[in-house]
């Protein structure tokens, strides 16, 4: 089953998704990257119906690039989240996209941010957020562990514990996961 978690720490944001592509009861692959980089300092972690998920995230990515080229300046993480929310809201009464998103980013002068967006166009600025059956209990774990001065090492340990808990308690846990971090230096992928 799909699993997406995001954590905002001090000066960075971290997102984790399951790395499986599933077709009915079959796992097609174990290295599906569901975290799309948007420019140099933002990430789009996605879950939902695979077709909608890819289509929508590429649409957002194209528009973010176009904005940067047209205006000679990048969209902030907040702006990307609000743009995506608007598109989801418009789509909702026409052809809804079955896509849940986490937008994570780092902006100069503002620091890290993490936005939660679901397919009904809900948007929240969060410290921790997630989707999928796994998030039901991992969120309560993170409630206990999160604090405002969270370091990268602590957040990575939280991600590791979250994955461990999912694998331990969920019947339909994914065997592989992707974790990406965005901070002042940019985006990088980490393994646990």
């Amino acid at each position, binding site marked *: 089953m799909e699993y997406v978690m995001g954590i905002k720490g001090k000066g960075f944001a971290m997102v984790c998704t399951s790395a499986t592509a599933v077709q009915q009861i079959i796992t097609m692959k174990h290295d599906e990257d569901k975290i799309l980089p948007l420019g140099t300092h933002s990430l789009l972690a996605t879950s939902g119906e695979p077709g909608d998920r890819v289509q929508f995230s590429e*649409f957002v990515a194209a528009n973010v690039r176009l904005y940067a080229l047209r205006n000679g300046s990048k969209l902030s993480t907040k702006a990307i989240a609000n743009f995506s929310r608007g598109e989801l809201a418009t789509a909702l009464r026409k052809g809804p996209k079955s896509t849940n998103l986490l937008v994570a980013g780092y902006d100069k002068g503002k620091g890290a941010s993490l936005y939660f967006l679901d397919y009904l166009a809900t948007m929240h600025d969060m410290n921790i957020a997630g989707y999928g059956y796994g998030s039901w209990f991992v969120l309560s774990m993170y409630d206990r562990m999160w604090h405002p001065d969270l370091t990268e090492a602590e957040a990575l340990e939280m991600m590791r514990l979250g994955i461990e808990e999912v694998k331990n308690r969920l019947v339909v846990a994914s065997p592989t996961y992707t974790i990406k971090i965005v901070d002042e230096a940019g985006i990088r992928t980490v393994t646990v």
Partner: protein
Amino acid sequence: MSAKYDRAITVFSPDGHLFQVEYAMEAVKRGTTAVGIRGKDSVVVAVERKATAKLQDANTVRKLVQLDENTSLVFAGLLADARTLIDRARVEAQSYKLTMDEAPSVEHIARHIANIQQKHTQSGGVRPFGVSTFVLGFEGDNPRLFQTDPSGTFSEWKANAVGRNSKTIREYLEKNFEETEGRETQVLALKALTEMVEPSSKNIDVAVMRKGTQAVYLPSEEVDAILKELAEA
């Protein structure tokens, strides 16, 4: 007499001219000069910068713009006309990428711009773009340089010039062009441009595009250094 064939752009004159298109070409000829050179490992453009008003921010008046991650455009002619062309080229670049999941070729973007310009010579209620463009970029290891004009033709060049005195500069390039590499390409571009333009970094901008990066302006000290070498040689 000729005024009769001047009302609508889609009307030929009896001797086969489209006056409005020719006037658009004239607008380009009166625009500031731009030289484009394709080197072995880079594309270099040298452009004449018009004197800006005393209190105007010169950085906001630029003839080189980025179309996509690895494609840029330089133009001669009417800046306002160029702006809409640039915008449509940028949209096409991203739209292509969204559809094909790969960057469009330089030729594709040049053809797209030329198509738009051509439509504006054959449709009602429009006026041709008073703009000639250089579209520069890379395809793999190969630098490419295309030119478009108001009539909607586009072609690839090793080196060319557009704008004021472009004919003289083109003739210079035809005599002096050679396959250049690295800094030599920048030197050749400046040699060609300073045939007709006052040699000073105050009124010349040089931009270099290398593989895998966007075009970057040379710092004015470097432009001055090359100009000094040329003056001494």
